[in-house]
């Protein structure tokens, strides 16, 4: 009963295969399991969809192409055509996060313990992804623009005295990017899943409270159905937001002078 209604239980990590390397715990866990499943599903489904590679696409191929064009359009509109060299990276990010979020929407999943798990609801995962993005932005920005990359903090067209204010603001905003990028995804997934579980828990508790209360249990049931729809939207939206922000940051690395 406590486990069934505990909203935090779904975030617990259980090792499946212990692995210690140099004092670091690198065990294969249910989190790792869902990451691997995501990779298999994304690459497997896309390969399957493109297996025929028909001139007139079927449904699956249309979805794959739609996703391709969607991400390509996203990059083109935010970072320009030269941003397309990051297309595989942005697509991987988007597909991986989207699949992770969507897998998290499964209440039960063929996994150890049979309970669903959302690896994007763990801060360390989103921080890892955000730091990957920032590393690429800074690395590519310096490699391509050299010293001019610092122009990012000195936007053009600003009166000289204002640089005293603008530059610190730009630096702070740049430094807060990885934080907001990772926390946004993490917090959305965490809050959504807790909310779902809390309302689902109400149904169980009301059901156990007696016949009169069991009728009232229909209310949280409706709430859970509505929240599930909302969370599916959030799952897609957060993957999209992450990808779009990545594109915008990459655009800074590509052309730091103007933004």
């Amino acid at each position, binding site marked *: 009963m406590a486990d069934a*209604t505990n909203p935090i239980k779904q975030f617990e990590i259980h090792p499946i295969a212990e692995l210690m390397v140099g004092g670091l715990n690198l065990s294969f866990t249910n*989190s790792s399991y869902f990451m691997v499943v995501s990779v298999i599903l994304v690459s497997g489904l896309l390969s399957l969809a*493109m297996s025929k590679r028909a001139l007139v696409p079927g449904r699956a191929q249309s979805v794959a*192409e739609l996703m391709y064009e969607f991400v390509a359009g996203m990059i083109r509109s935010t970072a320009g055509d030269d941003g397309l060299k990051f*297309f595989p990276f942005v697509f*991987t990010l988007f597909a991986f996060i989207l699949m992770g979020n969507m897998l998290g929407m499964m209440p039960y999943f063929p996994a150890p313990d049979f309970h669903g798990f959302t690896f994007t609801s763990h*801060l360390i995962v989103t921080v890892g992804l955000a730091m990957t993005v920032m590393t690429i932005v800074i690395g590519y920005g310096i490699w391509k623009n050299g010293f001019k990359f610092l122009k990012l903090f000195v936007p053009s067209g600003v009166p000289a005295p204002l640089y005293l204010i603008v530059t610190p603001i730009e630096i702070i905003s740049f430094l807060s990017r990885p934080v907001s990028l990772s926390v946004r995804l993490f917090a959305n997934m965490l809050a959504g899943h807790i909310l779902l579980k809390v309302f689902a*828990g109400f149904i169980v508790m009301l059901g156990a409270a007696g016949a009169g209360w069991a009728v009232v249990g229909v209310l949280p049931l409706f709430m859970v159905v509505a929240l599930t729809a909302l969370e599916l939207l959030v799952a897609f939206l957060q993957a999209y937001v992450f990808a779009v922000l990545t594109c915008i940051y990459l655009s800074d690395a590509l052309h730091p002078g103007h933004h």
Partner: protein
Amino acid sequence: MLSQDAAIETDAYEGNAAFPPLDPEYFASQLFWLAISFIVLYFLLSRFILPRIGGAIEERRDRIADDLDAAAQMRDQADETVKAYEKSLAEARARAQSVAAGAKAEADAEIAEAVREADARLDAQQAESETRIRAARDKALKEVRKIAAGAAAEISGRLAGLDVAPADAEKAVDAVRKG
């Protein structure tokens, strides 16, 4: 209800000291497997899958462009054919008109000829008839003179006992007719 929630909360923290999503125990493991998964997915997508999707889209775009070109060419051809058809149609129509006009002129000429012939024939017949009538009248008039002369001679013979020669009687009749 509240006490139950509180109980759940304490339950959650009894087994595991840290809030699981922030628990550092598995940070290394998660980063490690995240890196592996992400790199593998990146490799699979960028090497095999994305070029395949992009290729399919590109191929279709090329094919559509080719088909549009071909369609434009065919349309031009069709336009030309229509033009040629219209031209030949106009020619045929002009020829048909000239043939019809020719036929009409010929027919008119034939009709005029026939009318003329008929007129001539009728005129000839009329003239012939008139001469015949005139001849018959002259003949009849001569007969009348002779009869009148005969009658006059006979009358004068019976009444006056004169023997009048036929030639004199005729002269007398002529004189009376003229007088």
